Each structure stands twice: as C-alpha cells, then as structure tokens.
C-alpha cells in the first residue's frame, strides 16, 4: 500500500496550503518531506503512537522550532 493511502485510511487529509497530512482529531501532522523519506511501517507506527500532551504532534524531518509549532497550531486550529 502506498504511504499516502495509509494516511488517507487513517483519516489524514492533505493540507495544500501547508504541504502537510493532517488529522485534526488525532492532532497530528506529517510533512510531505517526512512522508517521502520514511518507510510505510514507520509511518504506520507514528500514526498508531499515542500522544499524551493534548497538543499537536508534528512529524517533520527537521524538528520545528517553538515559533513554527505555535504558528502551525494557530493555523490548523
């Protein structure tokens, strides 16, 4: 199965403005670069991982700064 289909099945939708795969309910976002550079099983593992903070989790190749996280949380809602 293609990585994009895995994300689609897990209710991730592509955000064209930000180039991210986003699941607002799970509060997780994958960058296109991260999806390109990681294997299917790694993507699945992160989709299934539990997050406890209540905030957003961003899967990026380069960790986003606090400012970028804040800005993304604001625009993603």
């Amino acid at each position, binding site marked *: 199965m293609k990585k994009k289909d895995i994300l689609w099945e897990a209710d991730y939708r592509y955000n064209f403005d930000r180039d*991210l795969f986003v699941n607002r309910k799970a509060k997780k976002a994958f960058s296109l670069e991260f999806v390109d550079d990681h294997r299917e099983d790694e993507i699945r593992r992160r989709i299934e991982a539990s997050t406890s903070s209540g905030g957003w989790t961003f899967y990026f190749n380069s960790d986003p700064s606090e400012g970028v996280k804040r800005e993304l949380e604001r625009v993603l809602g």
Partner: protein
Amino acid sequence: MPERTIENRLREEYFDLLPVIRQVTLHLETIIRYRTLSILRDLKPYEQVVVKSRVKEYESAKNKLLRPQEGDVFDPDKSEEYSILKLRDLAGVRVLVFPHDRLKEVDQKLGENEPFKNWTSDPVKYARGFVQAPKYYGFCSEVSHIVQGEYQIIPMLIGHFWEVEHSAMYKPAGWAKGADKDHDMKTLRAKVECSLLRFEREFERFAKKNAQPPSETP
C-alpha cells in the same frame, strides 16, 4: 493595534524594491543580448539562442522564502531573518540554447566579461542530477548593490518544458500545490528531462554526421 504579519512586511519590502528589480532585469537582459550577438550571427539554420527575462513575482518570492521550512509557515520568532533581498533571482534571465553544443560557447562568452566575471556559480542539476545547467548570480553594480540578478543557460527543449512545468508546480492556483514535492511527479519530471536531453544529443550527432554545406547557386 494588531502585530504586523511577516507576509505584510515582505509584501511592502517587495513593492518598494520592484522598480529596482525591473531596472536590474532590463540591464541584465541587455548585457546578455549584446554579449551573445556574435554567436547569434554565426548560428546554423537549425540552431537557436533565445534570451528571455522575467521579474520575480511577489507570490513566487514569498513561496521561495517559505519553501525550506516544512509546514510552509514563517517562524514568528525569527521575523527579522526574512527578507526579499535574500533571494538571488529577483531579476532573472534565461538563455535557451539549441542544440546543446552551443551551451558551452554561450557560457564562456558571458563569463569572460564584466559584470559576470566574478559572479557566483550555482549550477542547476536536472535529469536526475546527471547534468548541470550553468547558473550564476551577482550584482549589476551600475544599477544596484542590493538587488541581485541571476542568469542561467539551458538546453532549449528542457527550458520550454520547465516554463510549463514550473508554472504548474510552483505557481499553483490551489489544487496543484505540493506537486513539486511529490515523489511520483519528481520521477516523471526526471524522465522527461532525460528524454529531451537524449533527443538533443541524438540530433547533434545526426546533424554533424550529415552536415553538408548548402550548394551555391550559380
């Protein structure tokens, strides 16, 4: 009073600079046309050298500043680091050359004269990184010490392909955004570039093999 966004500041900076960007573009295009005149006069009937210029649009400039950041947002904590002036291709010229043989000649001709002698080389890799198109950036100091210009010399078929491909991939109206980063699209683009390059090389080989000077009419 609400804080000014980075986008608004960049937009103001861009439009303040626009008259200078236009001047640099015109200056760059004129020099390149002049320097390539001797090559133009010497072209065989099937050969072409075409000079095209463009002023980078605001949206394109903003997107280029955003592109390195995953998530496509400006970092509000680094607001002062973003500037339109960081872009090297605000004023851009493309020299399209057919066939490929003429490329080195144009590159050499331009590089040996001012103002390009000391410009920085930053070649474009295409066709899966196997080939490079010469690209340079720097200042036309007669016109501006703050706005940089850029010129590149490209095999013509690939250049025409890029015109369509870039406007679809990098200046999208919405639905095509992200196509430039899509793995499948990248693979297809590399295949097209390889095919076009092979066509040019094969044409050159054929033209050389079958070259016959036109017979003089009595």
